[in-house]
C-alpha cells in the first residue's frame, strides 16, 4: 500500500520477490529483507503508544495508499510500486484510472506471497495446457494480465456450542429403523477467514481456502511493494454474521461426521455462540484475466498454497467431435449387445412362455435395469453439467460485478 520503496544503495524503486522473500532493486541488484527496509524507511505511520494503548493503536494505525478506480465496475485498488494500472483484475476492463491518495486502516496481519509471478504463470499454463477441451486461445493467454493482489480478510476466533437432536435411518435388508442422537458439544474455531472485499465474491474466496495460518505475519507494508491490494469494505458487523454462520455449518458437519450417517438430519438445534476475537488481515491471490468471445474471465491462484481455482469455457467443436466418436463406439458395442443378446433373450423367453405359459420375467427385468441405468446416467450427467456451468459462471468476471453489487445492496 505504501507508494514506493527506495533502494538504500542507489535510490531506485524496489519490489518484493516471493521466491527469496526479499525486496530487490531492479537497478543495482541489491536485495534487502522487508524488516530491514521498514526499519530504515519507517513508512508505517503508527502513532506513539503508551503501554496500555498498544491494541488500540494497532487498530487505528493508518497507511497512505495510491488508489486506482475502475470506471467499469467501481472496484478500488491500491497500486503499490511504480507500475501504472492498465486493467481491472475483477472485471477485466481497461478502464482503470489513478484517482487519489488516501489514508487507510492498516491490517493487523498478512501472509506474504510465497508464489512468484513466474510460478503462478507456470501453474496456470500447466493446468490449462493439459486440458484437451480448453480452447487454444485460452491456453496461449497474455502474461500481462496476471496480477498479484492482497485481498482483505477478517480473521475470526469463534465459540460455537450446541445441544442438538439428530435423526437418521438405518436399513436392515428390506426394513429400516429410525434412530435419534442427542449431542451436546462445543468447538473453538481459530483464524476463520471471512472475505472483507465487496468486489471479490465469497464463493471464490472460500474455494481458495485453506490458507496455512502458520505463515501469518504481523503487517509489514514493505511486503506489498510490487503488488496491488484491495481495501476492506465489509464491516465487521456483516462479517460477524458470516463467521457465526460458517462456524455453525462447520460444527454441524463435524457432528454429522461423528454420528457416522450421511443422511442424518438436524431436528433440534439450541446453540450458544460468540465472537472471541477478530483481526484484519491481507492474504495473497494471483488473478489471471483473459478474454474469450469478448467476455472477460478470471482464474485465481492462492499466492501461498498454489491452489488454483476457476473454470474456463470449453471448445465446442472438440466436445462435439469427442461426443460423436464415443457415440459411434458405444452405439456399435451396445447396439450389438442389445440386438443379439437382448433380442435373443426376448425371443427365447417368448418361445418358452408359449409352450409353458410362464412369463418372460428375464427380459422385463433387464429392461427395468436398463431404464434405471439410463435415469442414473442422465441424473449424474445433468448434475455434472450444472456444476461445471456454475464454475464457469463464477470465473466469468461480470459475475464478480453482479455479486459485488448484490453484497453492496445487503450491507
Amino acid at each position, binding site marked *: 500500500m505504501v507508494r514506493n520503496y527506495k533502494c538504500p544503495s542507489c535510490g531506485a524503486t524496489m519490489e518484493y520477490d516471493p521466491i527469496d522473500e526479499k525486496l530487490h532493486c531492479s537497478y543495482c541488484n541489491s536485495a534487502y529483507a522487508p524488516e530491514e527496509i521498514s526499519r530504515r524507511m519507517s513508512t508505517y505511520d503508527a502513532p506513539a503508544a503508551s503501554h496500555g494503548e498498544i491494541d488500540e493503536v494497532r487498530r487505528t494505525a493508518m497507511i497512505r495508499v495510491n488508489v486506482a478506480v475502475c470506471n467499469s465496475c467501481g472496484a478500488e485498488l491500491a497500486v503499490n510500486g511504480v507500475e501504472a494500472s492498465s486493467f481491472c483484475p475483477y472485471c477485466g476492463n481497461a478502464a482503470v484510472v489513478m484517482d487519489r491518495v488516501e489514508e487507510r486502516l492498516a491490517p493487523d496481519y498478512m501472509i506474504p506471497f510465497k508464489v512468484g509471478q513466474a510460478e503462478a504463470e507456470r501453474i496456470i499454463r500447466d493446468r490449462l495446457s493439459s*486440458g484437451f*477441451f480448453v480452447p487454444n486461445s485460452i491456453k496461449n493467454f497474455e502474461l500481462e494480465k496476471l496480477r498479484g493482489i492482497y485481498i482483505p480478510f477478517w480473521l475470526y476466533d469463534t465459540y460455537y456450542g450446541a445441544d442438538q437432536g439428530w435423526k437418521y435411518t438405518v436399513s436392515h435388508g428390506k426394513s429400516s429403523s429410525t434412530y435419534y442422537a442427542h449431542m451436546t458439544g462445543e468447538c473453538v474455531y481459530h483464524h476463520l477467514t471471512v472475505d472483507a472485499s465487496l468486489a471479490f465474491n465469497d464463493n471464490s474466496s472460500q474455494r481458495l481456502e485453506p490458507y496455512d495460518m502458520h505463515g501469518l505475519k504481523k503487517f509489514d507494508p514493505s511486503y506489498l511493494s510490487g503488488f496491488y491490494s484491495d481495501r476492506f469494505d465489509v464491516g465487521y458487523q456483516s462479517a460477524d454474521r458470516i463467521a457465526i454462520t460458517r462456524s455453525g455449518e462447520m*460444527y454441524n458437519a463435524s457432528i454429522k461426521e461423528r454420528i457416522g450417517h450421511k443422511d442424518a438430519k438436524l431436528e433440534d438445534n439450541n446453540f450458544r455462540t460468540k465472537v472471541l476475537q477478530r483481526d484484519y488481515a491481507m492474504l495473497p491471490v494471483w488473478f489471471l484475466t483473459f478474454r474469450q468471445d469478448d467476455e472477460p474471465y478470471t482464474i485465481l491462484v492462492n499466492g501461498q498454497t498454489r*491452489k488454483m481455482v476457476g473454470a474456463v469455457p470449453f471448445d465446442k467443436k472438440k466436445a462435439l467431435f469427442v461426443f460423436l466418436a464415443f457415440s459411434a463406439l458405444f452405439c456399435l458395442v451396445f447396439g450389438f449387445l442389445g440386438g443379439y443378446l437382448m433380442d435373443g433373450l426376448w425371443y427365447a423367453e417368448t418361445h418358452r412362455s408359449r409352450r409353458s405359459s410362464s412369463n418372460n420375467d428375464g427380459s422385463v427385468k433387464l429392461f427395468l435395469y436398463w431404464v434405471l441405468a439410463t435415469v442414473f*446416467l442422465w441424473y449424474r450427467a445433468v448434475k455434472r453439467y450444472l456444476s461445471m456451468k456454475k464454475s464457469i459462471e463464477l470465473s466469468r468476471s461480470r459475475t464478480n460485478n453482479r455479486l459485488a453489487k448484490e453484497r453492496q445492496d445487503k450491507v
Partner: protein
Amino acid sequence: MIGLIIGIIAGFNLALFITLACIKYSVDAGSTTNELQDYGTLNILYTSKGMGTTEGEPDTSKALGMLESRCLEINEAYKKHQG
C-alpha cells in the same frame, strides 16, 4: 429390433456421460466445491444414540446453561491472554 434400439440409446447416454466427465475434468481447474475447513477441535460434552429418547439425558435448558458458562469462561480466558 427393440434390443438394438435400446442398445443404441444406451450407447448415446454413455457417450454423453463420459464426454461431460472429460470436459469437466479438462476445464474445471482446482476445487469445485466449497470445502469446509476444520479450524478447530470438536469437544463432545454429551452424546446418546438410540431408537428413542434415552433416560438420563440432560434437558436442553441445563445443557444451554452449561454452554453459556463455558462460552463466558473461554471468552474471559481470551481476554486475559490478550491483556
